[in-house]
């Protein structure tokens, strides 16, 4: 039973055999019944022919019966008047047939004799000269019975053969059907472990196996994607963490080799070291926020909040940064929308988005923060800038940790590379989404979408 339940091939074989056997039984039954029917019909036809001869002779005269017997000595017949036998052919009497046989409405019946033979009988009544005569004709039925028996045996004896053949055939067919799956499994095992960029081969035919392979390939695509992202993240993270460490180390080594008297030089060194430590701390904090985001253990204070109010607070807070770059920073409120959210994480997100916009928009540029109703029961908070814009290939990735559009420029701006990742995390925590859209005449719109009250 374990083997049967363990292997699909065996189960398929079994099912195959069972259905073949069932079909065979049905077929054999039909053959047997139709053969039997035709045997009976044939024997009755013969009987009724003989009966016709006997009755026509009887109705003519009893003397005709003797002549009939002389012509057809094989016909077993008798004629009764009531209980009394008027005439019985020699064949009839030698067969030791009983005179009283039960017959059906059409006059047909069967009789077994003490000699062990089996006869089919037909009876008919007729009026001759005012007397009611009963005519009976019998035929040996043994041949028919034997034929039927032989057929039955042939049918039954061929069953084991059919079963064995169906088991073999089923096993073979199941193997053929399953072999692509086996091949697929082996290939998939290879892909998962060592060759993440390989895919299952697709055939020309759009059959079930092709669909299965396609589903597998989709999964592999996603796996490879997240695998690559993970790899890139690890590489980026170690790079970002190592840089400040390397700076600290070289600053310390240089300071030790410098002459003792230059105290102001040492102060400079220590200040730089502390700045790098600050950078490291900030980076770690950001990473911790994001990793903890995965396990979702942050207690939130979800409450009804006016989006305009919070957004205005953020705009107010960051206004000085825009002023420093002589950028115009506008706040537009198209509707006073309320949403249920945790104010502090939402603010964190918007601060990150707006700081990002201010950072990457050129001196003298313009930034607008807009609160407006979105489609459905959604609220949009947009940060709209006329900066350089973001190329389409970067637009989806900028929300990933440490993703940088321009490696060289980012170093100069000094961001941690986590700002937008944290923004997305904070918005998703509040049940919203954030996306980046390009404007036709340059610049981009970062749009937060939140369910609206």
């Amino acid at each position, binding site marked *: 039973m374990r083997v049967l339940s363990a292997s699909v091939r065996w189960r398929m074989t079994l099912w195959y055999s069972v259905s073949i056997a069932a079909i065979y039984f049905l077929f054999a039954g039909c053959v047997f019944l139709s053969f039997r029917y035709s045997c009976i019909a044939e024997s009755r036809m013969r009987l009724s022919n003989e009966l016709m001869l006997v009755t026509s002779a009887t109705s003519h005269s009893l003397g005709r019966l003797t002549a009939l017997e002389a012509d057809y000595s094989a016909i077993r017949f008798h004629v009764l008047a009531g209980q009394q036998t008027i005439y019985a052919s020699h064949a009839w009497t030698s067969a030791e047939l009983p005179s009283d046989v039960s017959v059906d409405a059409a006059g047909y019946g069967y009789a077994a004799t003490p000699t062990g033979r089996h006869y089919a009988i037909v009876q008919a009544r007729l009026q001759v000269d005012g007397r009611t005569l009963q005519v009976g004709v019998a035929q040996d039925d043994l041949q028919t019975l034997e034929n039927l028996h032989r057929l039955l045996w042939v049918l039954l004896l061929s069953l084991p053969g059919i079963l064995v053949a169906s088991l073999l055939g089923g096993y073979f067919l199941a193997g053929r059907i399953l072999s692509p799956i086996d091949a697929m499994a082996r290939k998939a095992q290879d892909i998962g472990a060592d060759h993440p960029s390989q895919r299952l081969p697709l055939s020309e035919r759009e059959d079930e196996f092709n669909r299965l392979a396609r589903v597998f390939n989709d999964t592999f695509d996603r796996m490879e994607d997240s695998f690559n992202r993970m790899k890139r993240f690890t590489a980026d993270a170690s790079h970002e963490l190592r840089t400040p460490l390397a700076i600290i180390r070289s600053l310390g080594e240089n300071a030790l080799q410098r002459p003792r008297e230059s105290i102001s030089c040492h102060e400079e060194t220590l200040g730089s070291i502390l700045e790098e430590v600050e950078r490291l701390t900030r980076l770690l904090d950001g990473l911790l*926020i994001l990793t903890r985001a995965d396990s979702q253990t*942050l207690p939130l204070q979800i409450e009804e909040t006016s989006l305009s109010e919070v957004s205005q607070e953020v705009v107010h807070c960051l206004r000085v940064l825009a002023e420093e770059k002589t950028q115009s920073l506008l706040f537009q409120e198209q509707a006073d929308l309320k949403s249920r959210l945790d104010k*502090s994480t939402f603010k964190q997100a918007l601060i990150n988005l707006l700081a990002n916009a201010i950072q990457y928009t050129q001196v003298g540029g313009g930034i607008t923060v807009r609160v407006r109703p979105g489609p459905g029961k959604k609220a949009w908070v947009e940060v709209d800038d006329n900066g350089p814009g973001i190329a389409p290939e970067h637009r989806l990735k900028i929300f990933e940790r440490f993703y940088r559009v321009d490696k060289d420029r980012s170093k100069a701006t000094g961001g941690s590379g986590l700002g937008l990742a944290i923004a997305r995390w904070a918005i998703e925590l509040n049940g919203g989404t954030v996306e980046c859209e390009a404007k036709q005449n340059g610049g981009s719109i970062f749009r937060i979408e939140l369910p609206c009250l």
Partner: protein
Amino acid sequence: MRILIVEDEKKLAQALKESLEREQFSVDMAHTGEEGFFLVNEHRFDLVILDIMLPGRDGIEVLATLRKRDLRTPVIILTAKDTIEDRVLGLDSGADDYLVKPFAVPELLARMRALLRRGRIESSASLKMSGLEMDVVTRSVLREGKLIELTAKEFELLEYFLRRQGTVVTREMLSRDVWKVSVRAVPLDNVIDVHMTRLRKKIDQGFAYPLVHTIRGVGFILREPGP
């Protein structure tokens, strides 16, 4: 004032001891939980700085012992773990404050001062410092008799500094106390720097000596020129 530092990382303990001694505290050190346990049982301290992850007896146990003796000694917990559960565990065990490593020493000093003066109300309406005067009620600021116009944020900032004259204020403290943003990963540093630059321009430019000083890599300090 007698302070106990229980910290197994000897370099950090030594650095803390030196910083505190410079601020005129007398400092005892314990490097293991056992040692800390023994010291809090034997002596009386005005404040205990306690690392939670210690070899042997951990910080929470030392804290529990201290509280069992019903001593109301303020305790500041230091830890590298900053999940909410850890925070709650520490505060539930009877700690008064909580600092996550790495922290800035000025931050620790500020928290210590806050705990040590707890109960005393210190909110005079007028703040003064070598020629600089601030009236919190009328919201006016004068330096050497000259009226200085400040924005609301700049006023808040200056008040924060005047209440902490002579002590270093970190950007983290400003972000948390003046801007009310407590997450360190939020990029408010630039905002703080812009405000500080403007504030310095207004109160220091055109006067004989500056009052606001930058301490690189640490933060800012409001102090009179040294000798």
